[in-house]
């Protein structure tokens, strides 16, 4: 499995590094292990959910379409239930192997401090992640 960092996520991580070198160290160690052990991401995903950006009362065609198209954007929920977890939310796109991709790809799209982002539909991070994901399709 390939694991790549989107330029916007790279900026996120650089920004986090200025404030919390140990937290970023954990994050990068986990990403390294996910890359070398695809079973690990499967185990983490069993505890996670597909992100749903719908707000419910404000559904419009564009949003429904967006939600459908971001079905492969995932978050690592395991980090939120563990007291020793990393205080970041991580969003990534998963792209399966196919005609033009020999092996699956995980592209990290965002890494954000938990206290500043909770998957709000209109949050700039949400909008950015959706746009970046769509650009990768």
């Amino acid at each position, binding site marked *: 499995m*390939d*694991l*790549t*960092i*989107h*330029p916007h996520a*790279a900026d996120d*991580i*650089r920004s986090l*590094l200025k404030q919390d*070198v*140990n937290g*970023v*160290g*954990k*994050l*990068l*160690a*986990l*990403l*390294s*292990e996910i*890359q*070398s*052990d695809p079973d*690990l991401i499967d*185990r983490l995903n069993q505890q996670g959910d597909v992100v749903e950006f719908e707000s419910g009362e404000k559904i419009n065609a564009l949003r429904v379409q967006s939600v459908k198209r971001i079905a492969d954007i995932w978050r690592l929920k395991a980090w939120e239930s*563990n007291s*020793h977890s990393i205080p970041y939310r991580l969003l990534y796109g998963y792209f399966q192997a196919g005609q033009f991709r020999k092996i699956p790809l995980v*592209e990290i799209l965002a890494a954000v401090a938990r206290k500043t982002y909770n998957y709000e539909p209109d949050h700039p991070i949400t909008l950015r992640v959706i746009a970046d994901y769509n650009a990768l399709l």
Partner: protein
Amino acid sequence: MNQITQSLSELSLTTTPFFNKLFGSTAATSSNPVKITRAEPIKKAKSLPLDQFIASLCADDPRLDAAISEGSRWVAQSFYAEAPASIRKRRLETGMTQTQLAIAMDTSQSYIAKLERGEINAGMDVIGRLAKALSMKPEDAFILLFAEYEKKHD
């Protein structure tokens, strides 16, 4: 005016209105045609492979290498505590990513990945270097390597 110069002059007369319209210029005339300069393409930042990204961050912040080592120990405790003994588990407990172990053994990350998956029939030299890097006895390193190799080839 020779034939070629005349043709160019006629061409300029016919193309100038087009360029004026295209670029909205009122200054261009047949004697002062529009100059087109080649625009540089906009360079779009590319996604980076994880290892390359980590290397660039570590170059910028010398504290990060030690933080990643500590992070690897955290990964071992959080996600591999109940896993059976293996080279991977030992590496994480020692505080190393595959890339860090590769550097310690003077080899490549992909070689370490194959070693951990039991895809390498390791010789004495590799066993010795692995044992030294993971601070373990060579016979213990051999047992772990052989277990992976047997699992892969069963």
